[in-house]
């Protein structure tokens, strides 16, 4: 006699949210390692870090900060819109979020491009000839940390892309919103890390 048991597909919104928070912990620790390195070298090369920070374009940095903050707002609004079952608004807000992420990357691209033109990039002969060790460290960290952050922006956009597709097809809806909420959490994390990177590189003098 074959006993048969009914097997419902496992869906645990609370569980996936815990999972996402745990993953966010790991991301914080990943950047935590970099923040430790930054503080150690800032402490031992204060003047050089001061000098090097002047090279960065604060205007672009500020614009990018505003862009990310607004995008965090739009994705939070999209979650509320989904709860209110306004599918079109949700999709529009997600689209805006994606667009803002893209604008951030474009700005970053031109910012890095200018640095490259001036001969400032890891391993460049110009840096070895003209900059002090502290300044080299500053730019090394600048490229690693903003680069890793940009990578997270791209990953975040991919995740949001999945959420967008999910909402459009109806798989993600008011009752099964975990994917959208988790992409929102991730996007806020990416935003939060930038909130720390911005003052560390652009503002502190």
């Amino acid at each position, binding site marked *: 006699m074959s006993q048969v048991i009914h097997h419902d597909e*496992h869906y645990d919104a609370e569980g996936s949210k815990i999972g996402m928070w745990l993953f966010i912990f790991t991301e914080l620790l990943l950047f935590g*390692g970099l923040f430790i390195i930054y503080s150690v070298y800032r402490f031992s090369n204060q003047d050089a870090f001061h000098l090097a920070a002047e090279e960065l374009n604060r205007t672009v940095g500020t614009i990018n900060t505003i862009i990310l903050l607004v995008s965090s707002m739009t994705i939070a609004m999209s979650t509320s819109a989904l709860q209110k079952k306004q599918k079109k608004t949700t999709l529009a807000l997600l689209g805006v979020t994606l667009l803002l992420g893209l604008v951030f990357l474009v700005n970053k691209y031109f910012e890095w491009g200018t640095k490259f033109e001036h001969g400032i990039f890891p391993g460049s002969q110009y840096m070895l000839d003209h900059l002090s060790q502290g300044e080299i460290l500053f730019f090394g960290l600048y490229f690693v940390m903003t680069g890793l952050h940009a990578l997270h922006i791209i990953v975040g956009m991919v995740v949001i892309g999945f959420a967008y597709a999910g909402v459009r097809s109806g798989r993600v809806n008011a009752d099964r919103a975990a994917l959208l909420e988790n992409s929102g959490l991730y996007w806020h994390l990416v935003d939060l890390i930038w909130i720390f990177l911005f003052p560390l590189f652009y503002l502190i003098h």
Partner: protein
Amino acid sequence: MQASSHIPHDVSYLDYKGKHKGLLAWILSTDHKRIALLYMFSMMTLFLVGVLLGLAMKLELIAPGKTIMGAQDYNAVFTVHGVIMIFMIVVPGLPAVFGNFLLPIMIGAKDVAFPKLNLFSWYVYIAGAILVIISVLFGDGSPDTGWTFYAPYSFKTGTNMLPAIFGAFVLGFSSILTGLNFIVTIHRLRAPGMSWTKMPLFPWTIYGTAWIQLLATPVVGITLVLVSLERIFGIGVFDPALGGDPILYQHLFWIYSHPAVYIMILPAMGAISEVIPTFSQKHIFGYKAIVASTLAIAFVGYFVWGHHMFTSGMSGTAQYTFSILTFLVAIPSAIKVFNWISTMYKGSISLETPFYWAASFIFVFMIGGLSGLVLGALATDVYVHDTAFVVAHFHFIVFGGVGFAFFAAIHYWFPKMFGRMYDTTWANVGWIVFFIGFLALYSPMFYLGLQGMPRRYYDYLEQFHAANILSTLGSWVMTFGLAIVLINLFRSAKSGPIAGANPWNGKTLEWTVPSPPPVENFEEIPVYGEKDGPYEY
């Protein structure tokens, strides 16, 4: 994906026919039990490679001078041996194999919280393993830095480091995902009525381990990324020529890699905490003390990394702080040993193979642990640092501790996993041969280290010859024992006598389901009543 499916309850996970056939039925399965076996077989293969490399090193050291390989080959062999054994075997070992197989069953769940993520973790693991293998087979020579990838050598050496470093990073990612999965599983899927204080001890140690995997691994992840970027672009953070500090690499590396030692040993302790009450037929002594000491080890383990660097250059304050903290870890470890011994006291002990492995685990773990205190003390550490003493200590803990616990666990849960019993005579013979070989292999290294023989050299002075011969002979005896154990298990998995659901009279939940367990583990999710508990004999 189907919204629901019908899976018969009287078909075991081994015989279940899903929509895929043959190998695909395994490598596309999200069943935690099949994934556990995927891990087990991939690890077993890699483990044998690691063993062969270890044998090659011991053979080289049978006599002074060049025996079978020169300095560069020896460097490559101990590096690859270390990378395979650490990142692919002992770190993921018990959680990925026994954690995957037993954690859901022991807490009364049908599977882990994220089954697809679980399968994905295995693929990530395989990807990491392949990367390391690529670094050995292709490029300009195998990695030769040691498994620690110390800067600045790791970005200066001409050998094929990048795939190995990236492989270690990828393996870490797999470890993080497994840890994340287990934490959510334990929080969300415990059977109704199974409060935290009624959870068996193996899941408890998996829980402690999962937190370390989650919180420590990212730090080594970013460190390995940085050392790779240093190698590719020259960003300067670890390069003294550009103002960077190589000591900082060591700090960041050990912030992960010391807790990683507890990733290895905690689940081993958990397995031992299951084996001993079962074969003493007695309630575990000091359940809460064992749980508390598990969490204490996981916590304190974060703050002791500096003891790897006493000779690297650190302030005196930092040195004795790390030394004191290191000594603190000995306390919860000792609490566990006392609890295991007390559990045996006045129990009705049955001398079965898992019990032999567990008892010898306690023995080698104590030697390993106490020799660790020699290394944790500042004065003696300076003397034995980077000698064979460290190798002996490390292998007593990591191979003696984790390895013996792994074999205790496999002999304990084997009838559950495969539904068959192994030949106990051969299993016992294998154990005693292995145990004798193990002691002969590693004990002489304590002596050699105290006499001043450095580690990681293919050559040594004539005065160290006798003890090295004993050690090499030991490596052969141990491998012979290992062969007996493995052949016995493989044969029994196919043709051993059928084992019942509960051959050892265990009281934890995995013994309430048939052997091997059905696909969904439980026909009905068990409910823990007021008086139920995992060790109520």
